[in-house]
């Protein structure tokens, strides 16, 4: 599979012949869907294993997961107040899912599903629909007040502004995650062709941090948008 004019040295999906799939007589790219399912399977497996041996005094994998989820839950509750507890599963799920997909790009033989714009667009669309649905359920028709700004005389100006900035959230969520991860993947492939292993290993630390930061940013922005939808209109 040619990736931006560059060839990936080794991929699991190529070995399994799942790079492309023919659906209704049309050949479609299937790589990112394959790696999304790998990430889902991995997370489900870890979850099942940890659930199978829950202990009162946590150790090993349970400890790590409890620390991450506990930290995220604290963060959510500090930001949103007690109303945020209900959103912990969705937000933590998003974070862990994106983090897994991002970090899979660093594993030899696997690729990051988030390096394809279709994956990130789908997730941004989910977030967009989700927080608007939460706002609609919470406020009913009064949710329109969130789009009208602080003063009623200014409403005709604020409505298009708010609509533009809400759609801009969708665009920026999509492009930020996609651009960062795709760029990192391309840099890794280029460095690998220049000097295998020797040049890629140091970069792994930098990219490991950048990829977890991107997952965190997606999580944090979702949290901020949810907060805006649940809170009183200003």
């Amino acid at each position: 599979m040619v990736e931006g004019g560059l060839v990936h040295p080794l991929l699991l999906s190529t070995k399994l012949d799942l790079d492309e799939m023919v659906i209704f007589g049309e050949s479609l790219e299937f790589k990112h869907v394959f790696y999304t399912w790998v990430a889902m399977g991995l997370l489900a497996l870890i979850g099942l294993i940890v659930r199978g041996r829950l202990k009162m005094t946590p150790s090993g994998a349970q400890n790590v997961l409890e620390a991450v989820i506990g930290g995220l839950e604290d963060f959510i509750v500090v930001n949103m107040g007690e109303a945020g507890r209900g959103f912990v599963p969705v937000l933590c799920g998003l974070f862990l899912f994106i983090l897994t997909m991002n970090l899979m790009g660093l594993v030899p033989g696997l690729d990051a599903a988030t390096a394809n714009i279709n994956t990130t667009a789908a997730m941004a669309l989910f977030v967009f629909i989700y927080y608007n649905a939460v706002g609609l359920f919470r406020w009913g028709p009064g949710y329109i007040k969130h789009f009208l700004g602080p003063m009623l005389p200014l409403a005709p100006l604020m409505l298009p502004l708010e609509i533009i900035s809400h759609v801009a959230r969708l665009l920026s969520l999509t492009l930020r995650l996609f651009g960062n991860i795709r760029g990192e993947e391309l840099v890794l492939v280029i460095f690998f062709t220049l000097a295998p292993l020797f040049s890629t290993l140091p970069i792994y630390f930098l990219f490991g941090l950048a990829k977890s930061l991107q997952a965190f940013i997606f999580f944090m922005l979702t949290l901020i948008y949810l907060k805006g939808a649940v809170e009183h209109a200003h």
Partner: protein
Amino acid sequence: MKKKLLERWNLREGGIFDSAGKASVIGLHLVSGMAVGGIIGYFLDKWLHTSPWMKLIFFILGVIAGFRNVYLDTKLLLKAQEKKNDSTPKSGD
């Protein structure tokens, strides 16, 4: 263990992760407001045959929305910093 991991990750409000995330968001928010304004104007023009008025109006609205996004993001960032400064006791000076 939990405490130490949190310290290292700086997962608190106003910590490194939080601040870096909020700061790195600002640039793209400025641009994407303009882009969305331009796109909406372009398609309205195509639909209503009013070129170039909708493009102009919505691009300007997009610019305003983009700068408003930057203003709101900055306010958020400053609020988190203030909260952090209030909660942590001052060390040294």
